[in-house]
């Protein structure tokens, strides 16, 4: 099994307050901690589990700054074999299509069976980079994958749909799978493993190295314009309905009817 796993270095916004910079389109990240995107962490684990079961080779691909190397080394400590980090400010990072093009450039021309990505990035929440990547690579894809079975020349993917539905699909390889959280239990990368992973190859490349015309993945090529970021206002307060069950039901029904909600 020859695999690629695409990962993203993202800020943890669960603790620190999110503040939009005066430019209106970027966020002040000085007080955030950064780590691997949650879903991508599961993708890394899944690639290593497949490698352990079927033998193979995993290459990490990421677009990000030098300080994200620690995340890449952690993935290699867990069992990934080598990595490519694309560092180039000219990529329109807010557009999943442009991101997918850059990632595809790092993969194209090499043989592969599977490409795994997280199903969603926790910072921009687009949920589309993996799917766009499959399109760029011209291969099959399945998104929101909760279980993977590798068969002969095929892969059976269990997809998590809305309303608790599970869809099982079979795809011819090569394919891209976007991995949903909870598919496995990501392991810990011990420091001694991270130190050993220093010996594995981590290639840092620019768009030029990949032979990509910067104009084709920059903001000019992008059809997405980031106009404004803002913190949504709290729109209304909760109302507690008091009384006996019947009374409560009646009040609730009248609120729904008045509000035109039913």
């Amino acid at each position: 099994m020859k695999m690629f796993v695409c990962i993203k270095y993202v800020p943890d916004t669960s603790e620190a307050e999110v503040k939009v910079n005066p430019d209106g389109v970027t966020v002040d990240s000085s007080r955030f901690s950064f780590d691997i995107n949650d879903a991508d962490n599961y993708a890394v684990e899944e690639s290593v589990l497949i490698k352990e079961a079927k033998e193979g080779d995993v290459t990490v691909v990421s677009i990000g700054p030098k300080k994200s190397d620690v995340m890449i080394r952690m993935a290699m400590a867990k069992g990934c074999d080598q990595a490519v980090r694309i560092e180039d400010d000219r990529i329109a990072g807010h557009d999943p299509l442009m991101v997918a093009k850059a990632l595809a450039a790092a993969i194209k021309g090499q043989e592969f069976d599977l490409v795994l990505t997280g199903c969603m990035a926790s910072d921009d929440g687009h949920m589309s980079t993996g799917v766009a990547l499959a399109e760029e690579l011209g291969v099959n894809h399945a998104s929101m994958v909760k279980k993977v079975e590798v068969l002969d020349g095929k892969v059976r993917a269990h997809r998590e749909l809305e309303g608790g539905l599970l869809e099982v699909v079979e795809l011819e390889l090569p394919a891209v799978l976007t991995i949903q959280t909870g598919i496995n239990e990501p392991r810990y990368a011990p420091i001694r493993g991270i130190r050993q992973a220093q010996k594995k190859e981590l290639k840092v490349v620019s768009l030029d190295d990949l032979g990509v015309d910067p104009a084709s993945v920059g903001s000019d090529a992008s059809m997405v314009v980031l106009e404004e970021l803002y913190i949504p206002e709290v729109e209304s307060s909760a109302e507690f309905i008091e009384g006996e069950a019947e009374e409560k039901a009646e009040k609730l029904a009248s609120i729904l009817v008045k509000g035109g909600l039913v």
Partner: protein
Amino acid sequence: MSTESQTFTEKYDLLGCIQCGRCTGGCPVTVRADLNVRRFVYDAYYEEKLDELARLAEIWDCTACHTCAVRCPKGLKPLEVLLGLRTMIIESGKVEPTVRDALQSVLLEGNPWEKSRAARSDWMEGLDVKIAEPGVPVENLFFVCCTIAYDPRVKSIARNIVGLLNKSGVDYAFLDESETCCGSEVFTLGEEGLFEMLVEDNTELLNEYTAKRLVCLSPHCFTTYKTRYPDLKAEVIHYTQLLVELLEEGKLNWKGDLQKTIVYHDPCYLGKQSNVYDEPRTLLKNIPGVKMVEFERSRERSLCCEGGGGKMWVESESKKERLAETRIKDAKALEADIVAVACPFCVLTLEDAMKSLGYEEEMRVAEIMELLGEFVEA
């Protein structure tokens, strides 16, 4: 196994064991869990058994209270055999998610609480705190502790001492956001590689400050710096030791009156492991109006609260009464109004036990610095 070439038998001096069983006899968690530490000391002699031993759930029940080490007549540290087995699990990567996240957070952010490094000094907000500068000599360099810096419940330990230091005129300074986990819990969780890295990095960082003493607010940092950082230049003390000096120099001015009965709980890392028993009692005794009582199990026999040994991140499977609950019941029987402690972990575990027993109306768990904040002029 660890990458070191030493065998378990050599590393932990297993052949020194005379199988007297004093370790297990003194181990506080035996009343709740299936842990028999003597058995591990015995079985770990067989290299081929190590994998099997490492998979036993009870290796995670040890709270690293060190009672076994204190009691061993041969000077062994039986608990370290358990920690060595934990290392094997850690290095396989297959650990509880809570443990994984705590350790990873230490590596990435310098604290086990998954908080951003940039927020480490937020506890100082609104206070006039002297910040240390490399190369500028300082008498007392303070080390706050990850838990005190980030946990809103125990932040007041650091905040209250600042007021007191400013008032008394002692030469002191605190570290800024560069303060990084001492590794106490990293060590007891068995992440040897990460602990070695912390010792290296922290020694370098702390030695840059020309400090005479490193004053730790938590007994866990205190004991760790004192016993596991061989190249640290500064003398390591606990804050209660500094405050007793100030008391003797007449620099603590008492105010108010606390007409309460206090029982002091010796934290394992302050008492058993570092022999600081009297200073906390001296401070408490001097609070105007206080009546002190003692637990039957006090000083070196003090009962562990189960907050150490990485237990903050490992859920106990046992349904039996928590040791912290036993402790609170004992305090209740002594008719104590306040259970005073000198450790942030003890505050969290004992207070939790007090609440689950429903005693919060009539009883209070307080860190010494919380009480001093109320009864010493600042």
